[in-house]
């Protein structure tokens, strides 16, 4: 499967709240950020934690403006996220 996203893409994170181990921090759920770069390909941690082999997929560095995560703040937070946690977002200005 080709990678879905490229640097510069605007992406929105999942709002899912799974029962199982996941690596999307809750502060970054349902937020729009921008892909900084592809950061490798790895099996999904959620699957590995349940003893499954896990689908290998792209992981990306996604940068968020603090204001978009928390409502205030002038800093940026970059999180490394598996492709499964992401959907395309409408292009949006303002994310660093």
């Amino acid at each position, binding site marked *: 499967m080709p990678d879905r996203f490229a640097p510069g893409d605007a992406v929105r994170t999942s709002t899912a709240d799974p029962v199982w181990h996941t690596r999307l*921090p809750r502060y970054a759920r349902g937020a729009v950020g921008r892909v900084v770069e592809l*950061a*490798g390909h*790895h099996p999904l*941690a959620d699957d590995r934690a349940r003893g499954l082999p896990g689908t290998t997929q792209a992981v990306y560095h996604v940068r968020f403006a603090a204001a978009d995560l928390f409502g205030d703040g002038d800093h940026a937070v970059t999180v490394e996220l598996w492709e499964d946690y992401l959907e395309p977002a409408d292009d949006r200005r303002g994310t660093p």
Partner: protein
Amino acid sequence: MSADHHGSSAISERVRHVEALLEARGLVDEGEIDRRIDAFLAGGSPANGARIAARAWVDPGFRDRLLADANAAIRELGLSMSGGLQEQRLKAVANSEDEHNVIVCTLCSCYPIALLGPSPAWYKSEAYRSRVVRDPRGVLAEFGLELPESTRISVWDASAESRYVVVPRRPEGTDGMSEEELAGLVTRKGLIGTAAV
């Protein structure tokens, strides 16, 4: 945090008990635990990260290579991110007048042990992990680092497989120093981002 003396001896006994059980079951070899501990302690050290920073300060080509592909660049110094279960991807992020970087693992404690040695307890604490993504300027100020308002702060949350190292800004007044002397200026906190260097 840790239990009192009575508590510590209880957990010490529990660990010893489990270790003996696993040795009896053949899941741990005789002497393996001590060998692994020795290897861990002999492995990473902040001196490794400091060498990387100093090289980046004196050699702009190395700095560019480091920022583009840190895993490859650090091999030029005889360093590597192997040694664990698999080679980890390293991301080096450079501080500048405009931008200051700081690293955290909010979900657990991921840290470039191969380069910086064991992580400090504060890095692994809920206090640091909860606050640095929310108020990095405040956290850095508590560490004694006051940044100008014009300096953007960029927090990196080690949520997947990459590990991160900050390349601090080269301090003023260091023009005559050798690369080795420059490396001596770089601290573990500087490589995490909670100090200027």
